[in-house]
């Protein structure tokens, strides 16, 4: 890797980590996701700063091409994240459904109460 490439990659991963921290600071990211993304950010910075680390882990695990190890882990991780998000979305949909029903039921109750009130006061 040339010095230039190294610098660009390092700045890039530090920026990603900074972005994650900033999202947390502005309370745009829930605590339950915070730890996960902080770990991702830190791991990213560490591997960009010390590329030799990846090569050593890869050879220790018997992976011939170090980047393949990176891709493998990254894909596994991303599939997990997407699956989790789909699950969250389904859960949220169920919650909004229940809330929408409650709002409709309450509004009808209220309308009926109002009508009763009007007929008794007249």
């Amino acid at each position: 890797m040339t010095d230039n490439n190294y610098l660009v990659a390092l700045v890039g991963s530090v920026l990603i980590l900074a972005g994650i921290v900033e999202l947390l600071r502005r309370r745009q990211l829930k605590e339950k996701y915070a730890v996960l993304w902080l770990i991702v950010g830190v791991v990213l910075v560490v591997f960009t700063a010390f590329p030799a680390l990846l090569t050593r882990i890869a050879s220790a695990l018997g992976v011939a091409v170090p980047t393949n190890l990176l891709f493998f882990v990254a894909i596994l991780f991303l599939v997990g994240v997407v699956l989790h998000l789909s699950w969250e979305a389904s859960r949220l949909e169920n919650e909004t459904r229940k809330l929408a029903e409650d709002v409709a039921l309450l509004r009808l109750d209220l309308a009926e109460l109002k009508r009763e009130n009007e007929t008794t006061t007249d």
Partner: protein
Amino acid sequence: MGETVREIRAATPEIPVLVVSDGSTDHTVHVARHAGARVLALPIRLGVGGAMRAGFRYAVHNGYDAAVQVDADGQHDPKQVPALLDGLGPAEVVIGARFCEHEDGYRVRGPRRWAMVVLSKVLSRLTKTRLTDATSGFKATGGQALPLFAEHYPDEYLGDTVESLVIAARAGCAVTQVPTRMRPRRGGEPSHRPFKSAVYLGRAAMALALALIRRWDVTPVPAPSRGLRPAEEGVT
């Protein structure tokens, strides 16, 4: 829509009518209310199943012991509501079936027809009764099925017909059918295009498979009864 409500009220004056407006315009709500219905207006669109569960929850909350669902498009004849309600008692879900012994104008062909036949076969076996038209939207619900549906009615594709029957069968509710005559719809045409029918077949198979493998935590509680019965309809 208003016409359908007036028709229901004329056919069954002693039964209150609830219209579930699924995120539709204020105009619909106004028309329905003007026609003499109570209107449950959902703030966002939930689909047929969502509208249905809202209706069932209303029925349970207000102490009704049965509910009849009638489509807003005028396809279902309100004069047959008493026949559906008569089926309740021994049964807890009564389906108003199309293409029964009656000679009616309702005909479906192609993949959509196959899907309906297969669904009816599978659901007949599951509910241990002969169902010829499991996908009918004209149904009466009572007994333990009412609180069950108020809690567990699915809001997914075909959930209002296929999956709801699977849930009822799992909970041990008795299902039966009565023959009904269908009328042409007042608004909206049923699709008979081959591609759409094929998609319907696939999605129906998927819905059935999902319904069969899903775990349902179904322990219905006995409903407090007050003897009144609302007819309800889902507007989508």
